[in-house]
């Protein structure tokens, strides 16, 4: 199991370490619910150094990315970022990613920790014939996420950048707590916030400075409840190698007017299922629980849990395309009423 650069810092702050994608990371420090609410109401700080980072540069970097990703990378100006996906040859999803344009011919791709090796091999293969160079920077990049309505004001006290001039999905270089950092106004919580790419030797000093300034350390538990409440997919759950993204709420990512790897297969695959959000009347839904429409089993929960804001169990579930309300989720042999919810589950800014 790999230890991130902040392993000792997590222990010092009371982190309960668990294994996630081969890394020892804090599940929580004090309480998942408290950390969740700190992010919704204040500012929470996550160590997400387990995520993968690939540098993609060269004369044909854009042409390559247009081929390898589903979103329109040509829309990205220097200093801007977008959510995207890596389709496979069958039109499924190799991974969902974030793409940052750092310079004219230089991009940074952030990928899921569990998929680093798979993604890199896939991209390497696809890059044949393109004048492009791929470098895996995952081992030498620390990544922190400062998230919440107070993230900007808290960070402003520690940086020379004027954050009021920085919009969602901007990426830029700045000093933070006296260290060089690349900042992006992005995140995975549904809140305003920043992600900070750091050199390994700077990670701990910046982590401590942000906590000192008032951020609440937050673990993987809150990261999952926050993304679920925000209605974001988690790779391996809502998105897989066999998921057609056109059958999901994230179909907007796929730009059909451009050509990309796997496009024809994706367009040719009909949607047998759709992904819905459910709020339970009682109980906590968990991954794998069966979903019913009336008496008929029509699908399954892919992510389930507790929403600290709604104080209810919530779930993302795949159901048969035509399945209609009333929905129920089978919780330990009993059917709990579940109402259809728009995503995100809670109002977010």
């Amino acid at each position, binding site marked *: 199991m790999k230890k991130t650069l902040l392993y000792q810092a997590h222990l010092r702050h009371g982190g309960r370490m668990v294994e996630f994608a081969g890394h020892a990371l804090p*599940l*929580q420090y004090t*309480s*998942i619910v*408290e950390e969740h609410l700190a992010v919704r109401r204040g500012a929470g700080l996550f160590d997400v150094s387990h995520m993968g980072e690939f540098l993609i540069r060269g004369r044909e970097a854009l042409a390559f990315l247009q081929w390898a990703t589903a979103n329109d990378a040509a829309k990205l100006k220097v200093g801007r970022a977008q959510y995207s996906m890596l389709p496979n040859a069958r039109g499924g999803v190799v991974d969902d990613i974030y793409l940052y344009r750092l310079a004219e011919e230089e991009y940074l791709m952030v990928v899921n920790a569990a998929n680093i090796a798979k993604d890199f091999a896939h991209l390497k293969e696809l890059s044949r014939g393109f004048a492009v160079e791929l470098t895996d920077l995952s081992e030498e990049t620390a990544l922190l996420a400062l998230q919440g309505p107070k993230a900007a004001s808290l960070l402003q006290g520690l940086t020379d950048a004027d954050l009021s001039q920085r919009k969602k999905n901007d990426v830029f270089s700045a000093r933070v707590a006296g260290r060089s950092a690349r900042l992006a106004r992005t995140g995975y919580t549904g809140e305003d916030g920043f992600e900070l790419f750091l050199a390994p030797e700077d990670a701990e000093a910046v982590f401590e400075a942000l906590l000192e300034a008032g951020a609440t350390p937050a673990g993987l*538990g809150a990261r999952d*409840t926050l993304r679920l409440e925000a209605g974001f997919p988690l790779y391996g759950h809502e998105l897989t190698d066999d998921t057609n993204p056109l059958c999901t709420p994230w179909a907007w990512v796929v730009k059909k007017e451009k050509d990309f790897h796997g496009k024809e297969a994706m367009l040719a695959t009909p949607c047998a299922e759709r992904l819905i959000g459910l709020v339970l009347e009682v*109980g906590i839904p*968990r991954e794998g629980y069966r979903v019913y429409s009336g008496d008929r089993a029509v699908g399954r929960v892919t992510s389930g849990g507790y929403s600290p804001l709604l104080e209810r169990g919530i779930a993302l579930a795949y159901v048969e395309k035509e399945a209609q309300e009333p929905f129920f989720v089978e919780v330990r042999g009993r059917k709990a009423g579940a109402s259809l919810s728009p995503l995100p589950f809670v109002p977010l800014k």
Partner: protein
Amino acid sequence: MDIPKDRFYTKTHEWALPEGDTVLVGITDYAQDALGDVVYVELPEVGRKVEKGEAVAVVESVKTASDIYAPVSGEVVEVNTALEKTPELINQDPYGEGWIFRIRPLDIGHLDDLLDAAGYQEVLESEG
């Protein structure tokens, strides 16, 4: 971890407190701490006959669901309905307000088969 000496324990981290001819049941401080934020409790029906070791209630934290087993055989005579609205009582006061159900045992003498505080302490130490 707090382990009061006035009651009995199971290896599965329930406590059992004799009160007259009934036994109050809850989970230990260690168990609530390991579970984390308790957000839902599925209570048994009053009147249900249960066997020792039978799953009687379910405590759900944010991350997981955990069965609560009957420490003795008998009949469920009361449940802590306060947990329906405030399941976090289990975190806040696991040995008091966070009790889960009350059993009238077939034989109160069967409590002697359970662990005492020192025995439960050893279980925790062996679990590391």
